[in-house]
């Protein structure tokens, strides 16, 4: 159990956390401002990845692909908001769950109809590929460092937008009291479309960034969606700060748990059992973490209203 391996795993945890933050930020924003549960958020992640793969295939430029992922996801988000989501704001969570559950079906099979049934090619650009040696002699993929950097930059941008800009003021006011800002003459419907499209763009970017090192295929958004929900619940729904803390917590727990639990059990049980028991407990770990947090703080670490 070398020190270098532990450090490398912590970096992996951070990278996973940052990616989860991009997903969770949009989700918690949409719920915080509009009080809407959006199960189709994972589909926007997929739309971003597919758009990036398509543009990278045509133009060969990774930068254009990232821009395309932001644009495509934002456009898809805005379209869905105007046609469907707009009718759901005054409905209860039940109808929102069912409507967005239906959207998942439409997005998944629609994407498969357009792009075919096989995974798409999206690769790390040459200038970002290969490992780089960090202090303490750690060999770490440059691209993952890039993801951490991009994630933190986008995160800082989001905090700046929320804290400093006009839209930020409207978003925070909207979170506090939706009826009030309508009364104050803020064009509610435009604000909601912008917030929803912003959340979608963030998810699309996450999809594109991760798509380069994972598989761009139909249904890739779903496992990430569940993780994003776990993150915003731990962090406290509606709080961007909560989403960041929750994302890093889940990222580290999932990564380090997956590595150290099997070794922990290996001390007690013989290898084969330790490996499978460790692996199964590791996959349950984040759900145990979420249940524990909710029992101690029923509305998340930084949670406001339920």
């Amino acid at each position, binding site marked *: 159990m070398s020190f270098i391996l532990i450090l490398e795993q912590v970096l992996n945890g951070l990278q996973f956390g940052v990616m989860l933050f991009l997903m969770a930020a949009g989700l918690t924003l949409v719920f915080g401002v509009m009080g809407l549960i959006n199960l189709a958020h994972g589909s926007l992640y997929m739309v971003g990845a597919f758009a990036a793969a398509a543009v990278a295939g045509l133009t060969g430029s990774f930068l254009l692909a990232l821009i395309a992922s932001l644009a495509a996801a934002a456009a898809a988000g805005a379209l869905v908001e105007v046609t469907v989501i707009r009718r759901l704001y005054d409905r209860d969570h039940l109808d929102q769950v069912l409507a967005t559950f239906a959207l998942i079906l439409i997005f998944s099979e629609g994407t498969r109809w357009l792009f*075919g*049934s*096989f995974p798409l090619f999206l690769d790390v650009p040459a200038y970002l590929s290969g490992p780089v040696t960090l202090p303490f002699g750690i060999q770490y993929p440059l691209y993952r460092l890039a993801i951490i950097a991009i994630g933190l930059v986008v995160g800082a941008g989001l905090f700046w937008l929320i804290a400093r800009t006009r839209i930020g003021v409207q978003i925070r006011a909207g979170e506090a009291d939706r009826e009030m800002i309508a009364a104050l003459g803020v064009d509610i419907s435009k604000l909601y479309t912008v917030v929803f499209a912003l959340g979608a763009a963030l998810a699309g970017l996450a999809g594109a960034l991760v798509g380069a*090192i*994972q*598989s761009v*295929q139909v249904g890739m958004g779903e*496992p990430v969606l569940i993780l994003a929900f776990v993150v915003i619940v731990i962090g406290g729904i509606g709080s961007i700060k909560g989403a960041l803390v929750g994302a890093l917590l889940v990222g580290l727990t999932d990564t380090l748990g997956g590595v150290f639990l099997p070794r922990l059990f290996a001390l007690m049980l013989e290898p084969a059992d330790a490996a499978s028991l460790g*692996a199964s407990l590791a996959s349950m770990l984040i759900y145990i973490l979420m249940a524990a947090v909710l029992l101690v703080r029923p509305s998340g670490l930084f949670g406001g209203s339920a």
Partner: protein
Amino acid sequence: MKLLKSLAMATAVSTLALSAQTMAAQAETKIGMITTLSGGGAGLGVDVRDGFMLAIEAAGRDDIVVVIEDDQRKPESAVQIADRMIQSEKVDIMTGIIWSNLAMAVIPAATAQDVFYLSPNAGPSALAGKRCHKNYFNVAWQNDNLHEAAGAYANDASLKNSFIMAPNYPAGKDALTGYKRMYSGELAGEIYTKLGQTDYAAEIAQIRASGADSVYFFLPGGMGISFLKQYADSGVDLPVVGPAFSFDQGILQAVGKAALGIKNTSQWNKDIDNAANAAFVADFQAKYDRLPSLYASQGFDTANLILSALDKADVKDQDAFRAALEAAEFDSVRGDFKFGPNHHPVQNIYVREVIQEGDIFTNKIIATGLSNHADAYASECKM
């Protein structure tokens, strides 16, 4: 264009079947195909169906009706469709299932109701051993075979300390058991990852620290793509060996140059030189505008096996038809094809290497991992 064509054909065939259902002409042979045609794993089902239909249409017989249904990779849907095909559409033969868990849900019940089941893919160990059945045939392989061949190849390539990895589910455990059955070297590590895991940074770090001399992994579908891309990007350049599932035609294009040079084991490749194989590859590419994958070859062989048996016996006379199937006198794309006592293939399993032809990634055979290899469960099977 090709999507619309296969879409139209599939609808035509199933509507034809539905209309034909009322007048169940005696002479007719009805085949029910249940496979995964929607969701993430749809690529495999589409390949098996396209390979199968290529052979059926080439035969141009009008006394065969094929009913195709999508199981959405859900066991209860597969069971529901199987019940309908057996109880209401009275099919004689069934095929198509890709995944082991769906196979376990459907096959025992189907064979118990006197329906022949020819598996074009899933080969769970239970159905090859204690719970084999006279009406059950597997045309592809038993799940462990490709992994056993990889173990044998590791010995030949004098790999002494390999790090092995698979998802934490039955097929994953079977895979590593199969590899260890043939592999005689040391194990630098044996880890099970979460099913559907997409980030392997933690595992790659463990490989780097384990001092292994090679890596053997079984990660089907999207899991394999993620692992290969992250492995190529991590700077760990230990040789990698895997089963064909992560290197077949549908997956290779999404992995790209990260897979170049990687050795993988398969019972089929497009460069096996026999007439049937060359014709199959050409016809498939002409009809579907893409290179066939090993799943397509398995679908194609399954159809030709049925056609050869129908030439010799009527499917209603079950014993005669079973004997015809066991004889397996058809020219398989894999060359000579014969069944073992438990109706699983006894065949060569080759070692392939990933190469690039133009802008298409594909494989070429470099060695034979195991020749005339039967599965390890045949002895437990008492038909």
